[in-house]
């Protein structure tokens, strides 16, 4: 759906999205990185298991909930990528601890 610009080749970090390593600009949000990676959806709903993806990118819709470094219910649009970050889709309510 989305792509990074060709013009600038900024500082990048390497993160793992659904098991694949990708390199993404240092200042981008997790949700943005995921939208570029084209994995399609970021979570499935607890009610009907439907796929969902980020809607607002400003922290108000909670559609971007993902499992980040093993922690469920993180708003991917509010977190900045970090080197080595592990990003996974959240299925339903996510892993319970």
């Amino acid at each position, binding site marked *: 759906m*989305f792509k990074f*610009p060709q*013009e600038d080749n900024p500082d990048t970090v390497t993160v793992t999205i659904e098991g694949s390593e990708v390199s993404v600009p240092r200042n981008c949000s997790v949700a943005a990185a995921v939208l570029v990676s084209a994995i399609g959806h970021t979570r499935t709903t607890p009610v009907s298991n439907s796929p969902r993806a*980020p809607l607002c990118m400003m922290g108000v819709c909670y559609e971007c909930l993902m499992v980040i470094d093993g922690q469920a219910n993180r708003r991917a649009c509010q977190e900045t990528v970090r080197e080595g970050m592990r990003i996974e889709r959240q299925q339903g309510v996510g892993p319970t601890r």
Partner: protein
Amino acid sequence: MKAHYPLLIIGAGPAGLSAAIVAAEHGLDVAVIDDQAAPGGQIYRAIESISPERIKQLGGDYQRGHELVAQFRASSAEYHPHTSVWSLNDRQEIGILTQDQTRIITADHVLLANGAMERPIPFKGWTLPGVMNAGAGQVMFKQAGIIPEDGVVMAGSGPLLLLLAWQYLHAGVKIRALLDTSPYNNLLRALPHLPRALMAHHYITRGLHYQNMIKLAGVPIIKGVSRLSAHGDNKLEKISYRRHGKTHEIETDLLLVHFGVVPQTHLSRAAGCRHSWDNNQQCLRPQLDEWGATSQPGLFIAGDNAGIGGARTAEHAGRLAAFQVLFQQGIIDQAQRDREANKDRKWMRDDLHIRPFLEKLFRHPWGLLAKTDDDTIVCRCEEITAGQIRAEFQHGHEASNQVKFITRSGMGPCQGRQCMLAVAHILANESNQPMHDDAFYKVRPPVTPLTLGQLASLYPEEQE
């Protein structure tokens, strides 16, 4: 972070930053907390890290943010990014969440400057991956220059739609179509406000310029669009709409929608501030005095969460609130307060000339707001459809809050932010009533979901 501040500002957009600059200049111990990673708010997002190339693509207004953020950085105001607020009450106790730890801090005065959000309007298929808000597209563009890969359809009504289309064209994005959902007769209704709007004509000149550039680039601008729908299996494949009695389809994997912006009122409502329905802006807004003081003593609001006025007005409103706080805390006298405030008031008066015109031009038809198809999901979190809301109305549950407790609409993670307007409109339509001040879910803290672990961090001694 300290446990108490004379002035705590929530939100680092134009209103919060300008208030902090004024307060700090006068020696007040002020802190700004903000959900984002860097100052600027939505409007000046990523202003400190953006490449000069992209600044050009974003246009002149955005650059104003540089000055503001630089002044803020140079001031003595404390700044706490990545900090969200989950509760606020009438005793100026603020529940915050930072680095997974919850805390409660207090303040003599609180300024809520947490801005606006895009108006959610449910339509068929709006939950499909590939359907996003236009503002979300702009956020990614500002953050890292991210643009649609394979074209985009843009739809809705509001200045941001034109602005983003123009910005995308500069970045080489293919816009398949721009669908305008505002009714044809909006223009007629807006015309009487044109003379006044011309006093702030730069807004109009710019809007027309964008529109011309978009047309020149060969983008079809399609007016009079209704029944926008998104279709696909698990992700967006095509969109459809009605126009002049015919259904049209466009294949696309990305639809960006925008229906204007509305104040974020969850915190001010949780704090018990009085709000009223604004029929011109078609939104709920807090009742404020001329300084931005709410009905709760010590609690001020400035910026777009006070009602939509735009970034420049927000800056001045933030300053006004700061002057009043400085006056109430005995730091400046009344004469100084009024002298300073006069300049800001003059500026705001001039800037706000454009608003009545814009409000009429981009006004949403009642059908789009209230006559949602029965099978369309309204509450995205709990997957409650318009039909389920109507069924509850038929069962005698006529208030938003009743419907909420029976259906769970508005009880998911977003706490009703995405559905509160739609549910209120659907119920109003069923009862043949106009919108009113109490048409909405009640808001209770925490206004953002907290995990048990985060809540437990409030009571460290009991953890041991």
